[in-house]
């Protein structure tokens, strides 16, 4: 059990990061803090994929004449590709959410969710 735990420590750290990020998104009232939580959460998912791509005794997935095309020699390239895509998606979401946050701040003068809702109800 102890050995398995040690071998798996990246997974557990990733799980912890996921929870931290989710807490930021759900538990915080400030919109920017929610965004920070979102970024942590997404990054944790990237780590989940990347830690799963490792292969014992293998190197990075760029073919090297010294090792030919032996699959045991290179780590799995597919999760890296997927995560490259997912990173770009995350960047795109962050960009749009910044635009939204800016608009909200302009029209309400605050980023506190409750305060904005309060203003909205008064109108």
């Amino acid at each position, binding site marked *: 059990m102890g050995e398995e735990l040690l*071998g*798996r420590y*990246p*997974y*557990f750290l990733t*799980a*912890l990061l*996921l*929870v931290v990020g*989710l*807490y930021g998104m*759900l*538990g915080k009232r400030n919109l920017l803090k929610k965004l920070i939580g979102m970024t942590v959460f997404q990054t944790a998912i990237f780590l989940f994929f990347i*830690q*799963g*791509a*490792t*292969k*014992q*005794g*293998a190197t990075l*997935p*760029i*073919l*090297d004449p010294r090792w030919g*095309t*032996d*699959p*045991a*020699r*290179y780590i*799995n*390239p*597919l*999760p*890296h*590709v*997927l995560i*490259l*895509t997912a990173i*770009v*998606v995350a*960047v*795109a*979401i962050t*960009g*749009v959410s*910044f*635009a*939204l946050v*800016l*608009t909200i701040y*302009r*029209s309400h003068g605050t980023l506190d969710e409750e305060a904005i809702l309060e203003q909205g109800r008064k109108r």
Partner: protein
Amino acid sequence: MRGLTLVLLGLFLALLLYAEGDLPGRGDPAAPASTHVSPYYIQHSLAETKTPNLVTSVLADYRGYDTLGETVVIVTAALAAALVLLGERRAD
């Protein structure tokens, strides 16, 4: 509300820890992800695309449509951000 959030987070963490037991061992060369599809890329990339960087050949060729989608996502973000801020005036 806060209590509910914490309960949900607890369930989430519990599920992640529960699922861990049946994931293939870390770095195991016999794991399904290392034996099913990915060896094809390693063995054929150079012959089929002349590209030694496997990440590039998978990204832009074998799964090129994902990458098109990804490029569309980023351009969508540009258009979306522009749309959101279109016609907004500075509050100064």
